[in-house]
């Protein structure tokens, strides 16, 4: 073993550049692998992680305090189906305004919100824990804890003050903490338990909120059965609302699946590119050392010892790389983990995952060891004399070429021919560039698809939404809005749920009153509804795969209703119907929110201020921002930028290494050509031409590969999310001009990788190389 280690260490010291290249490539590979592995593990089932960590409930039930007592609600914890319960907590829907004073004249869209306020003295407990991420929990009156998502969305910091509206005394509360739990709804807050009643708006009902873990709750049917038992245990109509963990998980998984799909694709691409380059680097280094191998064997090294020399030579920088790359990968994943957690309203995950931190470097080391061992094994079996006299691995038959008639300058033709003189090496390098180009094509397509997505789902033609709270009536609301001269159109809306016979989950929908067809929702197929019992489907979520032209039977407010699907639209709600359809089953219902279309040229903020001032306590106007707020863009942007940089570096290093090996093998030829009169500039051009060919081949193949990948992943994402749209919808997102730029980028990266080897080749000493002394 000693001679093997002596030779290996000596080679590491002597071939410093090669050692550095292996170190950098291994470090990049393991960093990307560790980062990707950490992200995959920590974001693959974020809701499940949070659910376990925070002891999430299977069900959160909201009881109407007018129809049930706190004791009756607490007694439901003793039902046979209940394994654990927490609560009841008193709750109220409280309008708030940002700031410590009630400034009616300055109300803008971001300053008023309605929060579900729960009275809870302790965030811990055996069920439905709340995790403080900033500040502390409430200790008494005058304090409030808000969700982190709410704080970020409204730019509220710990220490800020918010004013509770809806009561005469307008209590001012100080935000003492930000928290997260397993409920994705951001508009929630917690106060001391005795404070809720004093914040509750006049005439608005209080609620009791209870959290449950059931003995059997793995499916929606189980949840349904558990709900039935709860309803039976309280007075009729007391159970006002509920949310199950399955709904939360689906919501998280919807967003998360998008992130995960693309993350997985990027990690696979990155690891693939790196594996190709690593194999290229180590294989090339071994192939170039045949003479040395022959000498080793001639002096007595066994084939196994020869293999050992090369494997150790490659493993030493790789092991050093692990020490740097594993913590680097964990650190690099932290911002993305934090962003993903924030986007999913979950607590941040740890960037250190033991299994990833062990497996990824082990895998990397194995790949490098295999890549070194395989060609070394071949060399180890060579006859020592042949190895010495050959000097380097024999070139393939495709190297024999004729100069022929040179359409380009001769040095470019020579260089281009050298690109695939070693087909495997050239092929691997071209593949690395192909992967880089394909990734860029895909990333560019993805970004354009997101833009197109936002365009398709762009805000329809209304500029303000107004929420009506408590006892303030619909006619009064309409009257306030119609008094504003800028009001052009008012459409009242209300959410509803349509139960589908035979299906466990109701279909959520929106009811529109007024001339809703003028709101300008973008129609994908068919038309907007024009009369009763017609419905429009949103393209995003169509859980029961209804089609245009289909008649469906649903139950709304416990009444049978037949709906005819007349169209689909780029909307985020599932089912849209006219108010006349709903009025037939719920004649006393009123809209809860109002979509207001303004006249052109209206100052929206001024309009919102005026409406807010007209009824500051019960009307909450909000200006609509453009876009759909697809908040994964930032995460994807960061991922794409990071991986594009890494892949570009890897591809460039791959070309660098290939040309380094090639010029080393060709040093004699280069010296001869220089002796014959090839100028340094022509030598540089010759070497650079090799890189150009590799870059061009990689780029030309990478573009269709990237387009194919883009279409496959967009379709996969749509399938995962249950979308009824596909990559065809976004096909036009790929701009041919961008493709050309990406192809040029691939060639440019290759040329950049050629700079140093080309300069070194141009400086070849004819005298030294040809031993002319």
């Amino acid at each position, binding site marked *: 073993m000693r001679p093997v280690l002596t030779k290996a260490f000596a080679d590491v010291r002597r071939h410093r550049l090669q050692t550095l290249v292996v170190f950098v490539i291994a470090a990049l590979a393991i960093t990307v692998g560790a980062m990707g592995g950490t992200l995959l593990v920590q974001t693959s089932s974020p809701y499940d992680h949070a659910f376990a960590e925070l002891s999430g409930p299977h069900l959160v039930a909201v009881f109407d305090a007018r129809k049930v007592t706190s004791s009756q609600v607490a007694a439901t914890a003793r039902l046979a189906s209940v394994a654990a319960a927490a609560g009841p907590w008193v709750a109220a829907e409280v309008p708030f305004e940002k700031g410590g004073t009630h400034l009616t004249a300055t109300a803008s869209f971001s300053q008023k919100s309605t929060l579900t306020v729960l009275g809870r003295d302790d965030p811990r407990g055996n069920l439905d824990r709340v995790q403080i991420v900033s500040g502390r929990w409430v200790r008494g009156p005058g304090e409030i804890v808000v969700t982190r998502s709410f704080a970020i969305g409204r730019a509220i910091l710990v220490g800020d003050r918010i004013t509770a509206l809806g009561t005469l005394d307008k209590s001012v509360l100080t935000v003492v903490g930000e928290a997260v739990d397993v409920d994705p709804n951001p508009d929630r807050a917690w106060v001391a338990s005795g404070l809720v009643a004093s914040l509750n708006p006049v005439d608005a009902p209080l609620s009791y909120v209870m959290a449950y873990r059931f003995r059997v709750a793995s499916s929606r049917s189980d949840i349904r059965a558990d709900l039935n038992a709860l309803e039976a245990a309280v007075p009729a109509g007391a159970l006002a609302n509920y949310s199950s963990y399955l709904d939360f998980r689906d919501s998280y998984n919807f967003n998360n699946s998008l992130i995960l799909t693309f993350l997985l694709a990027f990690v696979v691409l990155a690891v693939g590119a790196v594996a190709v380059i690593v194999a290229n680097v180590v294989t090339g280094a071994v192939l170039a050392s045949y003479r040395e191998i022959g000498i080793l064997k001639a002096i007595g090294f066994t084939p196994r010892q020869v293999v050992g020399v090369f494997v150790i030579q490659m493993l030493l920088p790789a092991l050093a790389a692990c020490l740097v790359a594993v913590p680097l990968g964990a650190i690099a994943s932290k911002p993305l983990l934090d962003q993903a957690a924030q986007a999913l309203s979950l607590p941040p995950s740890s960037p250190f995952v033991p299994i990833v931190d062990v497996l990824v470097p082990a895998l990397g080391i194995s790949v490098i060891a295999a890549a070194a061992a395989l060609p070394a094994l071949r060399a180890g079996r060579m006859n020592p004399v042949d190895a010495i006299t050959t000097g380097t691995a024999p070139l393939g038959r495709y*190297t024999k070429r004729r100069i022929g008639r040179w359409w380009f300058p001769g040095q470019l033709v020579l260089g281009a021919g050298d690109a695939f003189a070693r087909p495997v090496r050239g092929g691997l390098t071209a593949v690395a560039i192909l992967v880089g180009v394909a990734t860029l094509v895909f990333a560019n397509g993805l970004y354009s698809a997101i833009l197109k997505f936002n365009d398709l789902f762009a805000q329809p033609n209304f500029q303000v939404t107004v929420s009506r709270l408590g006892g303030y009536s619909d006619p009064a609301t309409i009257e306030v809005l119609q008094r504003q001269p800028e009001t052009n159109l008012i459409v009242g809306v209300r959410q509803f749920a349509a139960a589908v016979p035979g299906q466990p989950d109701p279909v959520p929908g929106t009811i529109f009153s007024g001339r809703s067809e003028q709101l300008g929702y973008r129609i994908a197929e068919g038309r907007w509804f024009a009369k009763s019992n017609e419905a429009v489907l949103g393209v995003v979520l169509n859980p029961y795969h209804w089609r245009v032209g289909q008649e469906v039977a649903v139950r709304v407010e416990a009444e049978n209703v037949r709906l005819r699907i007349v169209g689909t639209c780029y909307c985020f709600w599932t089912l849209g119907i006219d108010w006349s359809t709903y009025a037939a089953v719920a004649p006393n219902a009123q809209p809860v929110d109002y979509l207001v279309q303004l006249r052109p040229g209206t100052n929206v903020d001024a309009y919102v201020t005026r409406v807010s001032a007209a009824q500051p306590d019960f009307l909450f106007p909000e200006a609509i921002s453009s876009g759909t707020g697809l908040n994964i863009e930032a995460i994807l942007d960061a991922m794409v930028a990071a991986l594009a940089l890494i892949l570009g570096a890897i591809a460039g290093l791959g070309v660098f290494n290939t040309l380094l090996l090639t010029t080393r093998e060709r040093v004699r030829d280069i010296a001869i050509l220089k002796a014959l009169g090839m100028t340094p500039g022509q030598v540089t051009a010759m070497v650079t031409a090799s890189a150009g060919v590799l870059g061009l081949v990689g780029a030309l193949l990478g573009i269709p590969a990237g387009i194919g990948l883009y279409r496959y992943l967009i379709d996969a994402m749509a399938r995962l999310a249950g979308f009824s749209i596909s990559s065809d919808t976004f096909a036009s997102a790929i701009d041919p001009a961008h493709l050309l730029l990406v192809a040029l980028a691939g060639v440019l990266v290759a040329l950049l990788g050629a700079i140093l080897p080309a300069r070194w080749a141009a400086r070849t000493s004819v005298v030294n190389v040809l031993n*002319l002394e």
Partner: protein
Amino acid sequence: MIDDLSLQVDEGEFTAIMGPSGSGKSTLLNLVAGLDRPTSGTVTVGGIALAGLSEAELARFRRSHIGFVFQFFHLLNNLNVFDNVLIAAQLSGAKEAASRVRTQQLLNELGIGAKAREYPAKLSGGERQRVAIARALINRPAVVLADEPTGALDTSTGEQVMELLVALNQRGQTILLASHDLKLAGRYTRRIINLRDGKMTADSQPLDTGRK
């Protein structure tokens, strides 16, 4: 290394540079070819002063004024015989068609025309050296520099190569030959310059040229 050497070689001369290993023979040829630069003094070939020429200018000078024949041939293994010679012409920018004709002519003259499509690995040492000579001559250089051209050949083949060089010289080609073989130099060359430790120790006519 070379130490205080002044030398003039006239057009049409066949001069041998003799000396033991390390005497500076190859260094002298390298200086004439522009592959090396003197630390002091000047080198002028065909009226062109090499001092002050850039690397690229030296390369251009070399391709059109110098033909180099190496001891170990130094052919390009990936090119066949024809292309090994042609590449030198293409580097000098000569017209393609004319270069091709001249290449085949030279190969025929040197007795290896039939091997034009073979690759160097398939040739004998003597045949490779003939290819190297053809490559050295393709651009009609002012000077042919031959550095131990028979060093890697057997005696008989070496003599054949030397006779080729003599024939070239008889047609007016200036040749500078580096060799440690006095017998060979005495037989084939017209002038012998002896070097020792970089200094010229003798400049004389050989006693027996052995030439017709």
